[in-house]
């Protein structure tokens, strides 16, 4: 990855972390609209990061970002988008399918309202 891309990646990663954190804080204080706003921002940033990691050949970080993106879509009130992403991941990375299914179960259990 070019040095400029690396710097951009670091900046994106920082913003993403803070968006996830802001979403979780909003969730903790029961502010659903605010939580959704920040989870969706984080989801899109994770997709950009996943793409950057793929181009850089870092498949492990790319997978982590894809999983995080799907999780953020779910918690941001877009379960259909999350499901589609999880399905794609299970097809392209069958070795991770069991872990992804477990995560889906956790999301369905812990955040059922967002899935309806």
């Amino acid at each position, binding site marked *: 990855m070019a040095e400029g891309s690396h710097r951009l990646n670091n900046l994106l990663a920082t913003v993403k*972390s803070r968006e996830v954190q802001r979403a979780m804080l909003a969730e903790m*204080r029961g502010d659903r609209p605010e939580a959704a706003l920040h989870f969706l921002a984080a989801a899109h940033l994770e997709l950009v990061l996943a793409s950057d990691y793929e181009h850089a050949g870092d498949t492990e970080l790319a997978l982590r970002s894809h999983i995080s993106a799907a999780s953020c879509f779910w918690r941001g009130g877009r379960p259909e988008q999350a499901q589609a992403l999880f399905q794609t991941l299970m097809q392209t990375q069958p070795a991770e399918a069991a*872990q992804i299914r477990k995560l889906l179960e*956790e999301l369905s259990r812990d955040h059922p309202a967002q899935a309806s």
Partner: protein
Amino acid sequence: MDIVTALVDLAEMHPELEWEEIAAATVTVLEDRGLEAPFEFPLALTDLPRFGSAEVRLCLNREGIPAGRVARLRRTYDLARRIELAAIAIAGLGLYHGGRHEITDVAARGSGADYLVDDATHFLEVAGRSRRSDLEAAWQQRQQRLADRAAGGFYLCVVELETPSGRLAFFA
């Protein structure tokens, strides 16, 4: 060993994350216990890389955290949530002073942990309890869960706000 530190400095110790609300929430729970700044917080550090083990007493300065923000946090988060946030602050301070470790990211959902530490991306699990008697059970439960999931070592921090006190350890 006494360690004089400031809650507001968490933002410089762990710049990848936001600490404003976490620091203010920490002040609310310590004040609710009748404590006054600088807040004394005993913390047992165990097997931390680049540090080792020690019983330390954090002396927490609250300068730079406006009273208005503390009042807002008290209104907007219930006590259990504020205790969770205070536990994160204590973990952050313990990691920094116990070997200059840095929380670099929020852990991915499903990892079983809360945060990632250092470039090694070790898992960090944090828990806060209102009662001292609940600390041991929380410690054992989380240690077992992380041991089952984490490869390559993990940090665990559990604090109780009754006394208050806490533990932070690294498990290789």
